[in-house]
């Protein structure tokens, strides 16, 4: 079949080498593949596998120290042989690209319209009026409301999802035959991701645009791709149709990738390690109790003669209890206040209001010295493993530091022994003891962060997006490590993540946050089997499942409207517009216990919400 269709894009024995101070590094080691018109080809691999570089070379965007050999054929040209001037007639016109980070990929000082116009002016002969009309059509097309106003705004006035839509609109202006999407949704929230993916799929079907989708997320691939290449260490280890790869993977690496992917529809599939039920005997009282905690920040608003301040309610009245040995998952999208809540619990940010009770005694209002005493039992693991370790301290110094602070009576030798034992426990080789963070991988650094948090045998550890920056295979290992340590130390965990599939795997109970307020809280299995709040339903339906048949049959739930600003006083009624219409703008939706232990915030029904949007 494929012989009859002439591929629009084909790569022949492509090698890419970067010359670095440590000698030449071969990032891509001779790959061959092609893309047919109108198909979506997925290039899947973990960080550093060289999956982006192939397309960077095609677009002439390799870093200065990179050289590519071989052939990249696109529309009868070998792209590698074209001069920059010749390449400029191809890129942006017949072949365009969108990037991972929509927040920084648009020029900050030019309006959306100016940036879109530029493309049309460059590649097409068209009057200014037609150009503007076409830009507006495309902005409508990618479903950005109020196109006219948005076109005259600057990138920083748009949300991340909107900026990625602008990128898509901009790259589609000249009707390219190939759209290269490099991790297009990785930096976005799941609900936004679902919309962007739908949009790309729609464009593919309507315009016949071929898509090269570069991603690490097997769920995204399952939803979008016709064919897949699995890449590792600069080579393709497996390639084939989407169903072959998912249902009949041959290579061990592909199997491992699929197996590490947490599944929201089937939490027991991947966890080689089952979550242990908590001991119901241990009473909930006198462990951690968070009562009506609020964290407000004063935001300066310009305008008028004197600047005013408006409170931004990052956390607005959150209460929960945590039992010993229990894991509470906290999920929500960016800006929902989950990290702020974690910091408020640990008193790293003093809460504006409310109390945090730890072992029966309040944590707030304590002096620095009193708090320091408690910190021995209250630890946190952060998101960015490399950035949260001191670059000038060896990893053993970092792990030892809590001992120096809290157990200064220990001799140096005893401390060293403890550090080594801890390193064994978290799976770090003993000979790494004198390494610096930059010499380790992201996964290893996160193990250091966990070792540092665990060395005082704390009672509560907060994991703030602790696995989000890691590749799936590493993520699976770290989760397993956390669950092992939990069992060994009888730890309680607050597990914060935007990734619902991961949270489901590790948590006994789950709390869903939306703009600083709890919208739903229940036992883990209840919340996934029977989500009640429309926002929870929307979140769960937006997570892609790494199984093409299931994923394509699923329909994601959409609730119209953008995420309101947290400074908007009516934002808390986003799911209760009936109260807004009734003029009760100060109404606060109450948490109601529907079933024992299953709390849901008051809301209008999903069908009403979808109808009124």
């Amino acid at each position, binding site marked *: 079949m494929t012989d009859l269709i002439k591929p629009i894009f084909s790569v022949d024995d492509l090698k890419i080498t970067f010359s670095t101070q440590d000698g030449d590094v071969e990032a891509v080691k001779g790959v061959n593949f092609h893309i047919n018109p109108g198909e979506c080809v997925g290039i899947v691999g973990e960080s550093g596998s060289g999956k982006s570089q192939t397309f960077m070379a095609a677009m002439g965007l390799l870093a200065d120290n990179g050289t590519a050999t071989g052939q990249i054929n696109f529309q009868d040209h070998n792209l590698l042989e074209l001069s920059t001037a010749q390449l400029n007639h191809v*890129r942006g016109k017949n072949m365009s690209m969108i*990037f991972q980070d929509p927040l920084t990929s648009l*020029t900050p*000082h030019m309006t959306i319209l100016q940036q879109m116009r530029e493309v049309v002016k460059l590649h097409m002969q068209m009057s200014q009026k037609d150009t503007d009309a076409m830009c507006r059509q495309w902005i409508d097309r990618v479903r950005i409301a109020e196109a006219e106003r948005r076109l005259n705004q600057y990138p920083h006035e748009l949300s991340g999802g909107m900026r990625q839509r602008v990128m898509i609109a901009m790259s589609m202006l000249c009707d390219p035959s190939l759209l290269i999407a490099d991790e297009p949704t990785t930096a976005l929230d799941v609900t936004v991701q679902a919309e962007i993916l739908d949009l790309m799929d729609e464009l593919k079907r309507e315009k016949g645009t071929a898509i090269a989708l570069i991603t690490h997320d097997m769920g995204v691939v399952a939803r979008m791709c016709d064919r897949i290449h699995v890449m590792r260490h600069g080579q393709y280890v497996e390639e084939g149709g989407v169903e072959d790869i998912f249902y009949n993977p041959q290579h061990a690496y592909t199997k491992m990738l699929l197996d590490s992917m947490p599944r929201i529809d089937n939490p027991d599939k991947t966890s080689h390690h089952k979550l242990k039920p908590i001991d119901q005997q241990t009473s909930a009282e006198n462990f951690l109790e968070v009562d009506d905690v609020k964290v407000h920040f004063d935001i300066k608003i310009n305008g008028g003669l004197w600047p005013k301040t408006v409170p931004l309610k990052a956390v607005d009245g959150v209460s929960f209890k945590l039992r010993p040995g229990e894991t509470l998952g906290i999920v929500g999208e960016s800006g929902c206040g989950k990290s702020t809540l974690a910091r408020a619990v640990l008193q790293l940010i003093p809460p504006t209001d409310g109390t945090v009770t730890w072992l029966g005694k309040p944590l707030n209002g304590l002096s620095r010295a009193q708090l320091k005493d408690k910190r021995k039992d209250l630890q946190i693991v952060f998101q960015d493993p490399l950035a949260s370790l001191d670059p000038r301290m060896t990893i053993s110094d970092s792990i030892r530091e809590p001992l120096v602070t809290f157990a200064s009576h220990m001799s140096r030798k005893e401390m060293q022994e403890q550090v080594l034992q801890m390193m064994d426990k978290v799976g770090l080789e003993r000979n790494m003891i004198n390494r610096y963070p930059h010499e380790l991988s992201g996964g290893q650094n996160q193990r250091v962060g966990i070792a540092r948090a665990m060395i005082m045998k704390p009672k509560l550890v907060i994991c703030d997006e602790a696995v989000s920056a890691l590749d799936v295979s590493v993520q699976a290992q770290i989760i397993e490590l956390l669950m092992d340590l939990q069992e060994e130390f009888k730890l309680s965990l607050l597990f914060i993540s935007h990734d619902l599939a991961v949270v489901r795997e590790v948590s006994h109970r789950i709390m869903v946050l939306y703009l600083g307020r709890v919208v739903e809280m229940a036992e883990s299995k209840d919340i996934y089997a029977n989500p009640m709040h429309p926002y929870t339903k929307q979140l769960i339906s937006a997570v892609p499942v790494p199984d093409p048949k299931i994923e394509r049959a699923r329909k994601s739930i959409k609730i119209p409207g953008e995420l309101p600003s947290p400074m908007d006083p009516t934002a808390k009624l986003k799911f209760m517009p009936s109260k807004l219409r009734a003029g009760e703008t100060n109404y606060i939706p109450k948490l109601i216990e529907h079933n024992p232990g299953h709390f849901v915030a008051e809301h209008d029904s999903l069908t009403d919400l979808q109808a009124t949007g």
Partner: protein
Amino acid sequence: MFSFIVRRIFSSIPTMLILILISFALMRFAPGSPFSTERGLPPEVLANLEAKYGLNLPWFEQLFTYIKNILFHFDFGPSFKYKDISVNEILAQGFPVTLTYGLWSFVVAVTVGIPLGIIAAIRHNTALDYAAVGITIGAQVLPNFVMAPILVIIFSLWLEWLPGGGWNGGQWQYVILPVIALSTSYMASIARIARSSMLEVLHSNFIRTAKAKGLPMRNIILRHALKPALLPVVTYLGPAFVGMITGSVVIDMYFSTGGMGQFFVDAALSRDYSLLMGVTILFGVMTILFNAVVDIAYAWLDPKIRL
């Protein structure tokens, strides 16, 4: 914008008051007085002199009168050292001179420095880049008190093209050497800042997007990269501009231009209280003014900043 300017004016009032207070206090605490000479004046003469300039009054009364005169009469008082000349007259005489060579120095530093830095960044790691870096380092480390005599030796003594000093009402031949001597190190700093910020911008994600659109390099530099690359340069330009138009002692001494720099040092050495205060206040106002100009320029370069 309007409210920004109003706010700036209001917030500069306490700054100015603190500036006046501190310089007033520093001068009074420093040993010696405008009338201390090697042999010492007879006590009666000293008392008469102090009475004439109001130095016998309590300090707060002196300060109050001083501020009152500035606010209501725009009068900085008489100079203590230069007989029969008021500070206003000295400023009126010296400031235009420094303003002239300062403005030209600014123009030269900016028009040479920015393009030099930007071209070096675009041609990163080429001979041109290395040459630009070499020149700017050289220009930055060469102090103007070395630069000035070298210029005089070359252009006045050997080539006899330009006069070696004097001002002559600001005739162009007399302006060139002071401008070169003053602007060189500023030019070098501007070039270095422009180069490094341009390099950073050229590696940013939105430049990658611009390349992916197929824009020619020229377009990318002019439309996408230039404005953000200028931000750090503009930050530096505010204080640099004030530094240039308020003159330089070295320039005034070497080229006998009669600018403010000389008066400033003289005033400090001879405890000429009123002249020193006058110059300080002028510099202070300039600094506040041009920092506000920098902020306005920032808002133009970066739409995220709303004034």
